[in-house]
């Protein structure tokens, strides 16, 4: 590992290895780079590739659900034996597709692709650091993720198929190879992949936390940090506290699968054979899984909310409303996320008293969530709103966050959950509040920070088309799912035609599938725009959105170390937009964080004037002391 030297005067951590990086070869500059910006791009490109695979799988099972009687022989070149002789999709492949879609989207796209990209990219840039606390660990974190990706990808091509017990991999289904074909080598690869993924996630999170705590530039107190950094910081803490529990759960599952233990297994008679497992409980796994699984919702969502806070404030040309309340609500959500996990288990057979407790705690989480939604809306109030694609995606996120969030109030009520649990109502809820909202946050982030990532502008027109298509598409796919959920449609069904009660919404299912095909296909507008703009886009101005945060004070394409000279010093919070009398101080509708308060006496608030005066007095005193040491 590289040695690190602390330059106290400039609060500057600089790695000796950085010098080698400047003059490194292709491998050290672009593949095994220590530079947080390169690693962020690696995460982003990987996330996009995974999104194509995960989205593609969703199209396959939506085709099955929308058109259950259709002949799918035309998919044989892609799916081979997964299309049966009668031209139908194989039922085991259907389950595998559903499982892998969930796994890929939750972990590989929305955790690694979103949090990995923007935590890496923005933390050093927005807190005024040269890089992450450990560049080596950061590089290792990405390559462990890449290894996890390769293993998970390999599982798609095993003869018995990938894991197919749902992304929650509940045992005994996941523990018994004879239970379902995907519980063989596919499940083993799933578990091995997740081990590497968790290791990657932990390395990343440790780095984010230590960087935020230790490497903030002069003046960047916690009270002056952008909400993006707060969200990444809190997300990293959640990850560190919850992922190890999933690791433990997976480890015990491996023991049950391979070494004859019975942590999760008891009284099993399967395939004509009585197994010698006794004394275990599948419910134990569910508790352990959801101890990660529920915070995972916020590991995915909080960074998206952080990015949105920044984008909405910048493009409304207003301070984010209730900065402290936003931080408080994120902390509240993070804390509560650890004590609501069993609302996923109201009908698992656990003690009903626990159901009461978890219903109470679950509904409390609506309060900080409501605070966030109201604060976003109030930020728009009397703003001067510029609709960049990033801004559109941010407003879209708030809408989806509200729509998906309010249905959570229904599901969090244990008595109502009895009817709705494991139906499409749940699918609609989490796809809106977590899946789509986080995806929109990711898109907002890409459109907003693309100029800083690649030194180029993305095409706004294509961005608008992309947004409206995706926004309408998200609602057209997921809103009707509430209806079929209320009708009781269970999730993960290959076909609904067996049941009279569930066969009434065939047309609506077809509609959802068509909307999904249009929406997913529409994402190629973004992919084209992304890669085209990367090479052919217009050169980006230094600060294209008129933003206050420190990343926009770097060169157009910052090198390793981010700032060529000394690190910037922070004097103010990041949301000084449209301050009264800023014009008189020579500023327009924004004052960057590195502008001293003493330069903006007209536009300072009363409190800031006092601080500016103190600063000014101290500066004068210092100067006089230099002249006369006896003062």
């Amino acid at each position, binding site marked *: 590992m590289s040695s690190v030297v602390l330059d106290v005067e400039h609060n500057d951590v600089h790695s000796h290895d950085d010098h080698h990086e400047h003059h490194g070869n292709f491998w050290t500059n672009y593949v095994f780079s220590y530079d947080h910006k390169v690693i962020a791009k690696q995460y982003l490109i990987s996330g996009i590739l995974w999104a194509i695979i995960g989205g593609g799988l969703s199209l396959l099972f939506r085709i099955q659900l929308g058109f259950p009687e259709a002949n799918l022989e035309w998919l044989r070149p892609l799916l081979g034996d997964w299309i049966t002789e009668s031209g139908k999709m194989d039922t085991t492949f259907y389950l595998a597709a559903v499982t892998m879609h969930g796994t890929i989207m939750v972990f590989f796209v929305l955790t690694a692709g979103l949090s990995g990209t923007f935590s890496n990219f923005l933390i050093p840039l927005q807190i005024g650091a040269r890089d992450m606390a450990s560049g080596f660990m950061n590089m290792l974190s990405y390559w462990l993720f890449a290894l996890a990706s390769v293993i998970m990808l390999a599982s798609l091509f095993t003869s018995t198929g990938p894991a197919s*017990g749902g992304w929650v991999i*509940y045992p*005994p*289904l996941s523990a*018994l190879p004879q239970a379902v074909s995907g519980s063989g080598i596919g499940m083993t690869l799933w578990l091995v992949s997740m081990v590497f993924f968790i290791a990657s996630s932990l390395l990343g999170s440790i780095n984010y936390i230590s960087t935020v705590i230790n490497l903030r530039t002069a003046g960047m107190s916690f009270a002056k940090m952008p909400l993006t950094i707060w969200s990444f910081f809190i997300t990293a803490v959640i990850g560190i506290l919850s992922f190890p529990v999933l690791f433990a759960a997976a480890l015990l599952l491996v023991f049950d699968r391979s070494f004859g233990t019975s942590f999760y297994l008891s*009284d*099993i*008679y*399967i395939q004509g054979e009585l197994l010698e497992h006794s004394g*275990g*409980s599948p419910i134990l796994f569910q508790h352990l899984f959801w101890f990660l699984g529920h915070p995972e919702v916020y590991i995915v969502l909080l960074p998206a909310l952080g990015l949105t806070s920044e984008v909405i404030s910048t493009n409304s040309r207003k301070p984010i409303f*209730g*900065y402290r*309340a936003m931080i408080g609500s994120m902390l509240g959500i993070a804390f509560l996320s650890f004590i609501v996990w069993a609302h996923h288990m109201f009908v698992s*057979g656990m003690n*009903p008293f626990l159901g*009461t407790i978890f*219903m*109470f705690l679950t*509904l409390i989480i609506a309060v900080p969530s*409501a*605070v966030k939604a*109201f604060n976003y*809306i*109030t930020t*728009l109030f*009397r*703003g*001067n*709103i*510029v*609709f960049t694609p990033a801004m*559109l995606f941010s*407003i879209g996120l708030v809408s989806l966050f*509200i729509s998906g969030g*309010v249905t959570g*109030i*229904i599901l969090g*009520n*244990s*008595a*109502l959950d*009895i009817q709705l*649990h494991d139906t499409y109502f749940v699918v609609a809820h989490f796809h809106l509040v977590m899946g789509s909202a986080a995806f929109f946050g990711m898109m907002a982030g890409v459109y907003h920070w693309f100029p800083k990532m690649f030194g180029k502008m993305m095409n*706004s027109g294509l961005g*608008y*088309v992309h947004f*409206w298509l995706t926004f*309408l*598409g998200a*609602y057209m796919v997921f809103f009707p799912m509430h209806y079929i959920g209320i*009708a*009781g449609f*269970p999730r993960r069904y*290959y076909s609904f035609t*067996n049941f009279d009660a569930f066969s009434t919404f065939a047309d*609506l299912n077809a*509609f959802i599938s*068509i909307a999904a095909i249009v929406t997913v296909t529409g994402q190629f507008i973004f992919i084209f725009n992304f890669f085209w703009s990367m090479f052919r886009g217009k050169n980006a101005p230094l600060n294209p959105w008129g933003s206050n945060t420190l990343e926009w004070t770097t060169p157009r394409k910052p090198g390793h170390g981010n700032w060529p000279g000394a690190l910037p010093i922070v004097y103010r919070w990041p949301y000084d937009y449209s301050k009264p009398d800023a014009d008189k101080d020579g500023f327009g*509708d924004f004052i960057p964080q590195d502008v001293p308060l003493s330069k903006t006496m007209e536009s300072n608030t009363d409190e800031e004037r006092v601080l500016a005066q103190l600063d000014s007095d101290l500066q004068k005193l210092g100067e006089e002391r230099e002249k006369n040491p006896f003062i």
Partner: protein
Amino acid sequence: MTTALLIATGIILIVAVLALVYRIINLVGIAKEDSNKVTFSNKINGALFPILLVVGLGLIYWSYNDASQYFLPEAASIHGKETDALFNITLGVVFAAFVVTHLLLFTFPFFFQYSEKRKADFYPHNDKLEIAWTAVPAIVMAVLVIFGWRAWADITAPASDSALQVELMGKQFAWEIRYPGKDLKLGKYDVANIDNTNSMGIDFDDVNANDDFMAREIVLPVGKEVELKIRAIDVIHSVFLPHFRVKMDAVPGMPTRFKFTPSITTSEMRTKTNNPKFNYELACTEVCGYGHFGMRRIVKIVSQAEYDEWLMKQKSWLEKNPDYMATWEAKKAEKDAVAQAR
């Protein structure tokens, strides 16, 4: 629904055309080297939000009315009616929150879109406002928690001693159904007893099991409390009786239970739904393998008299399998011998 499909597809196309229009406008802006300036597309985007609000709320109103005829019919259990009422109240509350927030979220972009002549407000916080919108959701949640807790407590309370016990056992990919005989007591079971004949592993050393019988359909008397005793033998399944608002996982090694009181007979529901072929159904809602979607059983709710008549016709499992006790004794002797040898 086909109409819905066409309308929705039309809306997508209209929006796509609108988007393309301001794509062209944007390109014109680029041609004029005007790209740094906020262009006309800002106005279009600002206007599209309130348009979407009006069109969206209209679509929600229309689609809900259209789709609600296909929702599950009136709950056919006593607690189901209570939870449906709670669901409707909660839905009303959250829909109001949804409408109010979206009214603001989608009109502010129109009213406060960019203008060179205007400067945004510097409005970083308002403590009273923030306290208000923290307190209001908290109070609403508290009320919902109280109602929810009361319903949950009623639903999950132990069944009365007079409740009819019925055992449901999930396995890949079917449900097995067992009733107590005349003694009204279900006999014990053990997975170790399962064989080709005794698929539920009934323990015939327990005298209570001697008159137990298995059925192909679940038949229940209306108005009588029923306690479902639920278990599984391979993987997790989940008992779902949608019309009765009943759901409970079937977990290997951990028996579960759910009590409910059917309130509408099958024939009454056939009249209500105007569907002579209507049947209540039992489904599985916990993914359990490739046949998950096929775990269907019919549930019949009948009058007490019809139920008594049906009950009289049922033969106990042992009556249907008269040779089994010989096998049972032989297996038992074999087990005892193995145990003694150890």
